[in-house]
């Protein structure tokens, strides 16, 4: 399941709801990863743009991979502004056993960073500044360059 929220994530509500939803599905492990926006380099927070059609297709492909191992993925992400010390990203794996889940959460988050069509901006003095130096080109980038 993929959910997108305007502004910072209500982490307690999301995690609690997910836990209540999945506790009777007989998974042995529920492994969440929660990102927290750090106060660093003078930023007031982060801001995000998302291209939803490709994000949804990317997530569905990962869900199929997880299902082949008897696991399931959950993910929540923010759109727009997210202040310091709040959260913009939660992902979680549900799996029959711990080892499969720990491997999947690592692989999933790594590929999320490399492939999910989400653009990050630093919030500095009320301006959105594209985090170009921290961003990764998608596979096939440069196709139209001369």
């Amino acid at each position, binding site marked *: 399941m993929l959910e997108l929220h305007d502004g910072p994530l209500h982490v307690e509500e999301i995690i609690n709801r997910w836990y209540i939803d999945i506790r009777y599905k007989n998974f042995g492990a529920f492994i969440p990863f929660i*990102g927290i926006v750090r106060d660093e380099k003078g930023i007031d927070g982060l801001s*995000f*743009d998302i*291209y939803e*059609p*490709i994000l949804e*297709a990317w997530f569905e492909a990962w869900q199929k991979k997880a299902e082949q191992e008897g696991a399931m993925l959950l993910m929540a*992400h923010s759109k727009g502004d997210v202040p310091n010390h709040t959260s*913009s*990203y939660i992902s979680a794996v549900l799996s029959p056993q711990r080892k499969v889940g720990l491997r999947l959460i690592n692989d999933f*988050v790594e590929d*999320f*960073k*490399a*492939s*999910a*069509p*989400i*653009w*990050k*901006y630093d919030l500095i003095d009320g301006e959105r500044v*594209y*985090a*170009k130096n*921290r*961003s*990764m*080109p*998608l*596979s*096939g*980038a*440069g*196709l*139209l*360059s*001369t």
Partner: protein
Amino acid sequence: MARIEFLGPIGKEPVEVDIKNLKELKEIFAQDEKLKEWLGICAVALNDTLVKSLDVAVKPSDKISLLPPVCGG
């Protein structure tokens, strides 16, 4: 006319172009000074699927998206 969308930080309004393939789009964009800084780092999607070759036919109803480097989370 195919519709071209410039996603995320590119900050350019969508345009419509009369092209038959991505090679023709590359030739059109080569004359756009504002796009120069983006073309080398952008991926390209045709109807929301990333493409890796210029030898791709484009129909008038198609949507082409330029996707700059990403950083979710």
